[in-house]
């Protein structure tokens, strides 16, 4: 009896009868965003395109479908893509950050003369990128 009297929807913004306050909308924009069917297409497309060296797309995927990521056992069709996108983004970000930090901190001591060739401001000067017309 007590459980029946409990408010089945602790979150007033989510109107459903499930006790776990499952989100209604899969996107972060809520009702202004996508419906569930379209979300599957979008999530899948973002996930697949992210493999073209676009970790930012994975990050956008996770951001856009944040409710899916946050509430496990919700939107079972969308969730695999989002979880994999999050994992891919984390891996890519770790690799990139470690490389960038090694490059920045190591400097010439670690890389030798290659460092001067790789660093961006030298490259810009050499290629004349900043005086682009």
């Amino acid at each position, binding site marked *: 009896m007590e459980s029946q009297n409990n408010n089945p929807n602790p979150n007033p*913004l*989510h*109107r459903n009868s499930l006790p776990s306050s499952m989100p*209604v*909308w899969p*996107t*972060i*924009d*809520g*009702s*202004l*965003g*996508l*419906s569930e069917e*379209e979300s599957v297409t*979008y999530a899948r497309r973002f996930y697949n*395109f992210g493999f073209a*060296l*676009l*970790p*930012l*797309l994975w990050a*956008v995927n996770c*951001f*856009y479908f944040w409710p899916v990521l946050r509430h496990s056992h919700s939107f079972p069709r969308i969730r695999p893509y989002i979880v994999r996108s999050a994992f891919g983004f984390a891996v890519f970000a770790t690799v*990139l950050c470690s*490389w*960038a930090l090694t*490059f*920045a901190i190591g*400097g010439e001591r670690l890389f030798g003369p290659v460092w001067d060739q*790789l*660093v*961006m*401001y030298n*490259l*810009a000067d050499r290629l004349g*990128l*900043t*005086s*682009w*017309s």
Partner: protein
Amino acid sequence: MREVNPASQPQYFPVTSFDLSQCDYLSFFLLLCNLAMAQTQTQRPCSSIIDSLGEEIVRIIAPVSICMFLVVILVSILNTDSSLFDASMSMVTMAYTETTSDSTWDKFLGALLNSLAFVVLVTFATFILVLLFYFRCTRFLKLYMAFSTFIVLGFLGGEVSLFLIQQFNTPVDCITFFLLLCNFAVVGVLTVFMSKMAIFVTQGYLVVIGILIAYSFTMLPEWTTWALLVAMALYDVAAVLLPIGPLRLLVELAISRDEEIPALVYEARPVNHGNLSPRDLVQRRRLWRERRVDNSNLQTDSNSALGHGSSVEFPSGSDGNPSNNLNMVRENPSRNANPTANSPGGSYGCISLVNAEEEPVRVHETDSELSAPLIDRGMNVQHGRGEDAVPSENLMLEGIGLGSSGSIKLGLGDFIFYSVLVGRAAMYDFMTVYACYLAIIAGLGITLILLALYQKALPALPVSIALGCPVYLMAKGNADVGIKPPTLPHHYHCATQTSGERYQLCL
């Protein structure tokens, strides 16, 4: 900042003390933080009309302020030699390239010629845009928008970040740099291309595009910049309010077809009026507010004035007969009768229409696509409202916007030209920046009020530019004379009297 009460806004118009130039900068920053926080607050239902109105206004003023602020920062950090950009600005300075050895009159004439040429170009490009939109070449327009966004984000963004890297000597390697730049540009293109992307991401990218283009415009020679601002403000008025104006035609077309404007338009997130539950919001499926019957307003042709030009748009209830209204053809097949379909018809995807300028694409295409009018969207509470609908009532229920979700739309050209003005001021003094910022925000506020009153697409540039330019001259004139608060009225008097001579001294 929970409540934004437009009636009492001490934070918008503080009493400035001329001694505290650094404090002004800080308060400017704090004000922006406040605005930014208010902008990104969750969509709580607003409890009163003042709340919702204030929230709507804040949601459009905040990104404008952020854009201006970042352009000011860029301008003050990067003191690049303007010769770097001369070639790229060749389209704008095609009539005349200013040199320091020219006399004032030559500079003035040259600036006029430049701005005239630019306005002619923009008009021409906007008419082409209207034509393409009329013949439903949506695919081509979208592709062109995506292409120009890629150019702006990739090349302009890359150049600005290279300047920053050189300025701060950050040891970034080329692999990381190009990877990040590529990511940034491609995701930006996707947000512009796809109609349904995260609202925050879309808005962020539009602001970034505005910042980049505004920064490149600040590299123009001084006289040309000011002539260009005034010329664009006049063009805006003409293009949006005249019956043959291209922007007006574009908006009319878009509204009559209930389609998105094919241009880069910033749309503020709609405010949840009247405590609607999230489910109820789904019912609003139209892009534009259905034209309400307005007995006093017989502007049948004034409804669709979107397009390039910084203007505020409203579809006004034209004639007294909603049934034989302009063809509300549902172009978008995805909008069906399914109540669980997406809400307000893809209004958050900004289909950017880039006006075709071959040459420094980054100068032009943005201008025509970006200067879309400021569009107010009203929430479509009921379809087919009766003849005796009271516009003011609906206004309060639905929000002051034109679109079906009550949100306000502001063309990216507005962002750009506001930021150009403030960026120019930043080259001089921070006090000038603050004064110009306040003038522009005041102008934008006035435009929004007019938007709410007239329910029609309005140009957003003229009022702000009209307020901003004199304020810039006054602030600059004051700074030249010497800043002493007790003698302030005297200095204003001096400045206005000898304005011609002082102008020569200043510039």
